[in-house]
């Protein structure tokens, strides 16, 4: 097991390097370097010394690979993500709180997706072609076809029109800047379910299909018939054998569910105006605040890769066949 984890972590390193290169390229893509954009936008507000210092600090006169090295080594060794020109603050001061909420929302959504799709998937498989199977298949298709921001819009419209309140944000105004307390946590929970449903619906629909198909594959295998013929109850048979086997692909879905949840969280946050990475990233991209944008892309991707690593380890722990491969 330890060897497996070690190998898996080792495999992650090239991925992380690739991600950092992609994020760096995104920073570099807009024409001109960011200081030209900055000095054009902030005429006279920065002294020539400041500009010269920044030019030196980020090595804008250096060749590309050296610039990349300075940027990434600053992040890895000093936690310095660069400078946000829009906010006039170091990026590292801005991203952590937003990232924290993004992680929280993505993680809770993942739990929600699993908690909902697992029983429904099992039900659809065991009662194949029943009313509930068709019903959930239909709902699932609708869920897959609805972009999550559209769902967010509809929920906001319904909330606004029929309940007379705005459903955006994560906190009520009175808790917005309050320190953390149980009351604030409760307020967060009261707001959290909307983004969770919005982000999770499409993936729930997809995972119901996965669980249903997996379980259907197992249900007709001889060992299930054997279990039944030796007199095991239907429920016990189900839980003890086929569900356990069908569960593995279900858990390994985290590898592709997590990236799309993070994606969904970004766009939903823009619509629902959540204080997560979404609106900040969009703003940074619009104003070409590229260090902030690049850092977000880097960190969101890194978090996803780490999440996938955790799921792989979980899976190996659950399924010895993977460990000993």
């Amino acid at each position, binding site marked *: 097991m330890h060897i497996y984890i070690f190998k898996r972590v080792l495999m992650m390193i090239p991925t992380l390097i690739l991600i950092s290169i992609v994020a760096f390229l995104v920073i570099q893509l807009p024409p001109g370097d960011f200081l030209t954009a900055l000095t054009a936008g902030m005429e006279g507000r920065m002294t020539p010394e400041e500009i010269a210092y920044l030019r030196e600090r980020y090595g804008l006169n250096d060749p590309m690979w050296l610039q990349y090295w300075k940027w990434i080594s600053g992040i890895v060794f000093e936690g310095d993500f660069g400078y946000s020109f829009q906010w006039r603050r170091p990026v590292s001061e801005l991203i952590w709180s937003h990232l924290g909420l993004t992680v929280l929302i993505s993680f809770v959504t993942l739990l929600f997706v699993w908690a909902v799709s697992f029983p429904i998937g099992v039900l659809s498989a065991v009662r194949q072609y029943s009313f509930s199977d068709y019903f959930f298949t239909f709902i699932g298709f609708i869920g897959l*076809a609805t972009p999550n921001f559209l769902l967010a*819009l509809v929920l906001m419209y319904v909330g606004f029109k029929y309940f007379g309140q705005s459903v955006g944000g994560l906190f009520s105004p009175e808790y917005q800047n309050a320190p953390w307390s149980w009351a604030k946590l409760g307020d967060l929970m009261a707001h959290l379910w909307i983004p969770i449903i919005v982000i999770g619906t499409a993936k729930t629909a997809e995972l119901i299909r996965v669980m249903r198909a997996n379980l259907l594959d197992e249900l007709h295998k001889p060992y299930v018939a054997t279990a039944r013929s030796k007199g095991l109850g239907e429920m016990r048979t189900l839980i003890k054998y086929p569900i356990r086997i069908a569960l593995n692909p279900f858990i390994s879905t985290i590898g592709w569910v997590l990236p799309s949840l993070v994606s969904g969280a970004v766009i939903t946050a823009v619509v629902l105006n959540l204080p997560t990475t979404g609106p900040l990233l969009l703003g940074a991209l619009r104003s070409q605040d590229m260090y902030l944008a690049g850092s977000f892309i880097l960190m969101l*991707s890194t978090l996803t890769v780490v999440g996938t690593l955790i799921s792989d380890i979980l899976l190996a722990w659950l399924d010895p066949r993977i460990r000993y491969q």
Partner: protein
Amino acid sequence: MADASAYVKTNAEIQVYDDDVRAEDVAGQWQLMWWRFKRHKVAVIAGICVLFIYLVGIFAEFLSPMDPNDHHTRYTYAPPQNVDLFHDGQWLPHVKGYQVEIDQFTLRRTFVTDEEKIIPIGLFVKGDEYKMWGLIPWDRHLIGPLNPRDPFYLWGADRLGRDMLSRVIHGARVSMSIGLVGVAISLVLGIILGGISGYFGGWIDNAIQRIIEFLKSIPTIPLWMGLAAAIPLTWEPLYVYFAITVLISLIGWTGLAREVRGKVISMKGDDFVIAARLDGLRTNKIITRHLVPSFLSHIIAQTTLAIPDMILSETALSFLGIGLQPPIVSWGVLLKEAQNINAVATAPWLMIPGLAVVFAVLTLNFLGDGMRDAADPYSHH
């Protein structure tokens, strides 16, 4: 050899044998697939719907009652009109005009139907001039008011008094074609890279698979946002259109490549491939002449299932304001108008493009599902 005569049948015997041959036994692969597909009623209906959407997109100029960018500030957020076929018991297809009431306190304008004002409508009426596909000048519209200056808003008007129906129709052209073009690019990438990966195996396979895993492991929307934001604002709309399409397909090809790879691996040991190789056929010929045709049906089905993803991606990007930009009309661009909750509250019809997206994606999914089931006519489900 003496036994051979035992196998020679008389004409009569062959006749009897022929009668036993069922159509299924002699039909070609595509014929079998078509039969199988036809049995899948939902998929057939979905297919007709998809065809309908594409036809709407193709004939957008003719089908839309107005120019989608024609604005009338008098009719800002005018609500949808109802079509009545009779007036005073007489055949007279018409819609009712608007009366504007201004609230004295909030100064908000509200539209009320003016029961007195009858706006006769008809088919094939003269209206705004346009160029069909940018080529053929014409001024006929499938449906519209007999007097082109009368207001005619079947699906309401937007912030600038533009006709939502016309905009959704024109949006169909852009949104649906982005799906097609994007999928075409993904398909080329997917078949080439997936084919190479599966056929050669070894370190090439490993490298390509790692790249695919990498692309799949990063959250797409932030990455797309970053790349799309780099598209210069000064570009021509057509360039932006292609840039966005390429961006979307650069990440979208991975799924197709995996499918192709799986199929190639399962087939490359088959007799017909080995025979081709022993005949001295070059590798690229083996892939294009023998392998691709045999999994083509499967790939077409997978491709159909990939189109909705492309449409959703474009919609999401345009919705955020970093994809397509006005004056291009796509469903995502239209939905951007619905971002403001106050606007949606006064004009819920701004969300109609969303329904169009859901309808298109839903039907494409059903169609693709049916095609995938039909693509393997020898399986017995």
